[in-house]
């Protein structure tokens, strides 16, 4: 409840300061995210059961951004990430590798073949006996089915293909499994989430659980939800994948970071995704 209050308190402050600072208003907790005037996305909902002890309500990062940034995500024409999603759809349909196949050769039209997938990743792969992120699955397909070179885990192409695939799940509630074969990985992710790192001695929870709604220097701290990923960040004017953002956050604690694609970040992605169970997949979101 205190967290809710802090968000509200800030909204009031912003209104009071609005006269002086013009566009300073942000974090209207009741703002509605409707894309293209037709797709309503859930940006605020009850926390999943496993998180009930920590927070009551989960919020999409969209609610914490300035109104101008929010507006960019409400119209696909204005959302710069859509350019990458479109490029990703072209990659999906492009034949590559020694087998003469594209993604579409096996999976069919992207709107059908990839529907709903973003919402359930990372997930257990029975054949491989491991938890896989979407990036890992893309590269596994490229190597074993297409005979193509894998993409670099964090790369323009990977960001584009993941954007295109994620867009097919836009509006569906995040629903990653946390029990069964993934339980151990999930527990590892949870431990990492609460482990302090770096010279600044901060854990993910220090900012995103205990202090969301507050300012960290000029930044408005969100809950660190990843339902909007991949995101187009105005900061670096490109698509950012989940592990890229994790790396940036850990770096900001002034620690040596884990590598994108490492088992630590895979576990953390699973855990952080599960904290957002119930929020909508936002496809390609826009953040600062």
């Amino acid at each position, binding site marked *: 409840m205190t967290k809710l209050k802090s968000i509200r308190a800030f909204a009031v402050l912003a209104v009071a300061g609005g006269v002086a600072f013009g566009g300073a208003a942000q974090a209207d907790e009741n703002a509605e995210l409707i894309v293209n005037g037709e797709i309503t996305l859930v940006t605020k909902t009850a926390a999943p059961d496993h998180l009930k002890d920590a927070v009551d309500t989960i919020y999409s990062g969209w609610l914490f951004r300035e109104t101008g940034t929010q507006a960019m995500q409400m119209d696909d*024409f204005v959302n*710069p990430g859509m*350019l990458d999603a479109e490029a990703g759809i072209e990659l999906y349909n492009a034949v590559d590798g020694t087998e003469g196949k594209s993604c579409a050769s096996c999976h069919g039209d992207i709107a059908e073949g990839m529907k709903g997938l973003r919402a359930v990743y990372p997930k257990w792969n029975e054949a491989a006996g491991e938890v896989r992120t979407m990036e890992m699955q893309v590269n596994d397909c490229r190597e074993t089915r297409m005979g193509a070179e894998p993409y670099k885990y964090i790369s323009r192409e990977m960001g584009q293909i993941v954007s295109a695939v994620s867009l097919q799940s836009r509006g569906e509630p995040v629903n990653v499994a946390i029990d069964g074969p993934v339980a151990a990985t999930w527990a590892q992710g949870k431990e990492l989430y609460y482990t302090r790192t770096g010279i600044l001695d901060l854990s993910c929870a220090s900012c995103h659980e205990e202090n969301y709604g507050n300012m960290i220097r000029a930044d408005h701290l969100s809950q660190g939800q990843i339902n909007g990923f991949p995101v187009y960040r105005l900061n670096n*004017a490109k698509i950012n994948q989940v592990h890229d953002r994790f790396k940036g956050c850990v770096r900001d604690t002034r620690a040596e970071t884990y590598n994108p694609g490492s088992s630590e970040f895979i576990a953390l992605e699973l855990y952080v995704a599960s904290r957002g169970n119930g929020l909508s997949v936002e496809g390609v979101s826009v953040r600062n």
Partner: protein
Amino acid sequence: MADNVTPRVRVPKSASAGEVISIKTLISHIMESGQRKDGDGNLIPRSIINRFTCDFNGQNVIDVTLEPAISTNPYFEFEAVIPETGELKFTWYDDDGSVYEDAKQVTVG
């Protein structure tokens, strides 16, 4: 040579005579400023869209000079009065000499 340059335009298909319509344009472009250096310390050559124009039935609506500080994928939103049925023609000029064009028909009636 800039890759994957695709212009996009959104304009209402119809308008009433004398109506002010909102026009949105977006073009995917790297907009390399010419100020940055690559990993080996060599300057990355400038590659930007340096001019954007919009004409309605041959009459100029807007003519923009773009500078290197404009970030990737330049987006323009502006308004125009539509007096009659006609065609809006959009032109982007690239540093490398390429010209990208798009056109949209607006019907008054």
